[in-house]
């Protein structure tokens, strides 16, 4: 069910003729594109802490955003009141960026022929509130029973259901319903004087039973305990340049920061990225093929259509080290004279769309993961990261590891703490010297921030070796 179609339209006496009037009001001869985005989102969150399921919340956020684009100019207005006259006022305001009063009539047609990549059902109602509470209680009991050193456990179960409607002056409109579930565990272990934390989580675009009826939550709980336990024995990390082996899966977040953002269309149209004007050129070692794919079923970063109504796609960004293309939304694709790639995303109706990643990953290579570790005399094996950041102009990126080990004479030895990686995107990609055949996507917990807007994303990569990168730590 789509709440916009089944409920908001009816309650506010909206119909497609009126939507046509709104689009007409926001468009005109000098407007290249105008669109109306309507959204109704319900979010819930349940948390178990100290063994008590002590907090629960539900938030409803609904509204519309309307924008008018003329060349490089964008006018934008949004509001919460779906009353027709209010939306018409907003349409006028968004067009006021172009000092012209003429409008353009049009006939809208529905575009619904895209592949549906997830179920059109709200996760919130997919199990009862009692079941959610019992589930959290059960996981808590499981963790407390597993390790006596547990000092604190925080478990969170949350989900959202987004109903969206988008119509534009190119003459089409579409509906999409987007479920999203997320489960997180954080464990603090205490041993002697030391306390350390471990966390793990997973989720995707489905309803609760897809996660709760599996062994997955227990595996994630085990994982959180394991990481905290590893960190209890971690030693300070030596600063300086070294060889780093990145594990498969979540370490793909490095790819997301080091390369992904620099390949977003807006930065490249404005030539503010250090990947600007490099299409067809070598930007990474031959072993690197990087894909952004919004079409993987049920994944956290996937969308059937992006927030401008363009179906998502599997886009090759880098192929065997050669830069193939950028990620685009409608506006930047038009200005750069290329096709939109289905990467036009926005945090909500109250934000403007821009080119964003979906699920970004590197394809597997031919080496074995063990063989990569064995090839390192002295280096670091980084398995998990807590977050990162990039300056897309200089290409500088930074990552902090939440689980990492020393590699000595080809063997993984003791755990290290407080390790930060710093490097330059293209430089580092050129130093990728071995890529394993174990490509893995992350567990479905990634959130990407850009210009103050957060959207869910996925990352992935095989085990890989970077020959020389700067590592931060407290030891000299």
């Amino acid at each position, binding site marked *: 069910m789509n709440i916009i179609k089944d409920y908001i339209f009816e309650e506010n006496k909206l119909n497609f003729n009126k939507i046509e009037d709104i689009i007409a009001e926001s468009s005109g001869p000098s407007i290249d594109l105008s669109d109306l985005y309507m959204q109704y989102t319900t979010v819930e969150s349940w948390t178990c*802490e*100290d063994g*008590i*399921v*002590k907090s*629960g*919340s*539900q*938030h*409803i*956020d*609904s509204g519309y955003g309307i924008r008018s684009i003329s060349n*490089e*100019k*964008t*006018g*934008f*207005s*949004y*509001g*919460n009141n779906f009353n027709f006259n209010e939306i018409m006022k907003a349409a006028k305001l*968004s067009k*006021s*960026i172009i000092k012209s009063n003429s409008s353009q009539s049009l006939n809208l047609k529905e575009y619904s022929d895209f592949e549906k990549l997830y179920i059109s059902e709200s996760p919130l109602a997919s199990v009862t509130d009692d079941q959610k*509470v019992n589930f959290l*209680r059960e996981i808590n009991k499981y963790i407390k029973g597993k390790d006596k050193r547990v000092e*604190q456990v*925080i478990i969170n179960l949350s989900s959202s259901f987004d109903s969206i409607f988008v119509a534009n002056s190119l003459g089409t409109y579409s509906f999409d319903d987007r479920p999203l579930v997320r489960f997180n565990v954080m464990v*603090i272990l205490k041993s002697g004087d030391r*306390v*350390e934390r471990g966390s793990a989580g997973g989720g995707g675009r489905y309803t609760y039973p897809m996660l709760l009826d599996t062994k997955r939550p227990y595996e994630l709980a085990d994982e959180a305990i394991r990481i905290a336990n590893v960190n209890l024995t971690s030693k300070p990390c030596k*600063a*300086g*340049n070294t060889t780093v082996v990145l594990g498969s899966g979540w370490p793909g977040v490095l790819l997301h920061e080091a390369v992904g953002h620099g390949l977003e269309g807006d930065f490249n149209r*404005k*030539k*503010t990225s*250090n990947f600007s004007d490099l299409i067809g050129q070598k930007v990474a070692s031959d072993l690197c093929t990087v894909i952004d794919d919004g079409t993987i079923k049920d994944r956290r970063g996937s969308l059937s259509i992006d927030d401008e109504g363009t179906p998502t796609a599997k886009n090759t960004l880098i192929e065997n080290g050669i830069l193939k293309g950028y990620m685009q939304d409608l506006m930047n694709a038009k200005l750069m004279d290329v096709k939109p790639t289905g990467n036009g995303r926005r945090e909500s109706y*109250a934000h*403007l769309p821009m080119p964003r990643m979906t699920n970004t990953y590197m394809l597997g290579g031919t080496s074995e993961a063990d063989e990569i570790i064995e090839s390192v005399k002295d280096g670091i094996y980084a398995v998990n990261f*807590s977050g*990162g*950041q*990039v*300056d897309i*102009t*200089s290409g*500088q990126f*930074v*990552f902090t590891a939440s689980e990492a080990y020393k590699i000595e004479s080809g063997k993984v030895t003791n755990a290290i703490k*407080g390790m*930060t990686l*710093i490097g*330059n995107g293209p430089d580092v990609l050129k130093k990728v010297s071995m890529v394993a055949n174990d490509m893995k996507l992350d567990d479905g917990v990634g959130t990407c921030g850009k210009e103050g807007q957060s959207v869910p994303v996925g990352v992935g990569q095989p085990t890989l070796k970077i020959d020389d990168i*700067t590592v*931060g*730590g*407290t*030891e*000299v």
Partner: protein
Amino acid sequence: MSATFHETTDKLKSIIDGLDNKREYEFHFNSADGADVTSRFGDVENIQYHNDESLTVTCIDGKRKGVASTNNLSDESIKLTIDKSKTIASYLETDEHQGLAKDNLINQLNIDCDINFPKTFSSDQLIDMTVECEKAALDYDKRINNSEGSEYGYSQSNNLILNSHGAVGSYSSTSYTLSCVVIAEENGLKERDYAYTTRRNFEQTESAQAIGKLSAKKVISRLGAKSISTRKCPVILTPELSVGLFSSFLSAINGNNIYKKNSFLAEYLNKQVFASHINITEKPDIKEGLGTKPFDSEGVKTSEKHIIEGGVLNTFLLDTYSASQLKLKSTGNSGYTNILIESSKKMLNDLIESVDEGILVTEMMGSGANMLTGDYSRGAFGYLIEKGKISYPVTNFTIASNMIDMFKNIEEIGNDYYMNSKIKCGSVMIKDMTIGGS
């Protein structure tokens, strides 16, 4: 304050007064409107108009707390939101510490605390300011060859709290922000930097010219950055970065992190945290203060407090819930207000001159501050200091330590106060940090 905010206040007051006495209720209502304009290369690129409102209802039913929110303020939707908060509460488990704020509650509507300075602009005025700002940057130096533009934003917001123990409070505030981001290139290498100003009162914002020039100066000084070798040395953080360090401190003494044992300062109450020359004070009522608030987000009156005196931690920052967990009283710190870090009254130049070999850090990246262990390891950009003078820009290095050590090793705090944050502090000199370079 807009007429609609008054109307909504009256409506919500009569609704909460009519609710059952068996449960506790809290209403938190926010509304804001404003506009944002971005110009790039002398022409407007974006105009955005905002208009938001949102109501959050908290229901405590027999020590169980449910929260629901909506941005649809129709009678029907408010009723559904209240019902939802009750339903959620009914499914939860009892937690003896749950309860709404009862003591020291605010009881005044439309409080004037000198942070509301409404002003209307035509979109052309906003465009002109951004164009002037960016032009000042682009004209500064030929090496500045690209721009992300200049942005002007203003907003007015209204804040209302009501609870069934008698909290009634509201106030309005304004904010005006101008920023500029430019890119410079030399020998094929690009750098970006920015400058911004944010104030409660338009009259107090820095001029478009000044912000444009500052962004230009900052980006030009980054060109030609070199790498640096691994070492231990003193580090000076610019005021902007010091704000980040002190905000990590404030998060570490937040009651909710303390009772969860998720803080490296959990055992430090009444103990030495900083060097003895350091004093940190919360002042909730500074005129035009970016953090000024008459009450916290639970409706408890805010008050001045000496958080750090002579380097000793006097108090945690407690809301009602964390105070109950720790068997203490709320300090009116469901959130914090203006924080003043007293300086040792030296200019940044004095600090630099006192360093034989060290680094002035002007930018940090990544999320390497571990609140549980205090481990600190972040990427950085800055300037090498040799024999008391800035020598050249340095990049691609990390700085690392543990926050417990960093706090104790703060030797000086400059008087070059940063004005764009509710945390007011100057440059900070830290004795000994590990630099990870090549």
